[in-house]
């Protein structure tokens, strides 16, 4: 094990950790919006770190170029997808979780803009 290999293994492990936390967030979070927040964006970080780790591991121009292109397209497309799905839910009036201590837990977000 050289230093480089340990570094690459750390990057890939961190990517898998974020992927796991995104998947767990999908199960644990109480409403649509928080699920979207924890899973959608966690997946971006996870894919980015995994692709970066693979590019470093192979250390080859072709693989690196493809990994960079994939990361760029992820950064371009994921926020637009997240925004469109969230906007559809918001306009349809999907109820929103307000925290575990509050009395009224679910409210229509459109009437509670602060």
């Amino acid at each position, binding site marked *: 094990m050289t230093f480089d290999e340990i570094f690459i293994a750390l990057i890939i492990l961190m990517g898998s*950790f*974020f992927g796991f*936390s995104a998947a*767990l*967030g999908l199960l*644990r*979070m*109480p*409403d649509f*919006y*928080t699920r*979207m*927040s*924890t899973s959608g*964006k*966690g997946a*971006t*970080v996870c894919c980015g770190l995994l692709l970066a780790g693979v590019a470093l591991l192979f250390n080859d121009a072709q693989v*690196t170029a493809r990994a960079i292109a994939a990361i760029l397209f992820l*950064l*371009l497309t*994921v*926020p*637009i997808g*997240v*925004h469109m799905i*969230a*906007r559809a839910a*918001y*306009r349809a009036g999907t109820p*929103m*979780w*307000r*925290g*575990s201590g*509050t009395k009224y837990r679910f409210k229509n*977000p459109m009437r*509670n*803009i*602060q």
Partner: protein
Amino acid sequence: MRVFLLNLLLAISWSVLTGDATVDNFCFGFLIGFLALRVSPWLPGGQGYFTRLPRIAYLSFFFLEELVLSSLRASYEVFSPKLQSRPLVVRLPMERLDQNQIFLLTNLISLTPGTMVLDVTPDNDALIVHTMFVSDPETFREEIREGFEKRVKEATS
């Protein structure tokens, strides 16, 4: 934009002339081209490029830092036994931003875990943002104004 293309052309010529097409050498050529253009007296489109490029790099680094920090915060929230977040829907006024700046700002906010843009008001003057970790709307507005909005304005104007 034209100065950026000139800089790219200089970097490519550097790689070709030194006969070494690796990424390191290309970046070195880009740096040399940047310095050479910096001292040249006449340029198409003026001198705005030299202040803008470092600002764009700064915005990217700031964004990466925010991404890592808020991802860690989101995973902490997911793994903690009791949910502590108090989600909010905040109206975020956009003062004097044009369409491209709003697009960039919306993408950056949506990419950060924990915040999500739900809607843009029809006349482009405010964003409706869902946030998980900030419990006070005024603090959140202040954070975005001092963080992303300021740097997006600097990088694009």
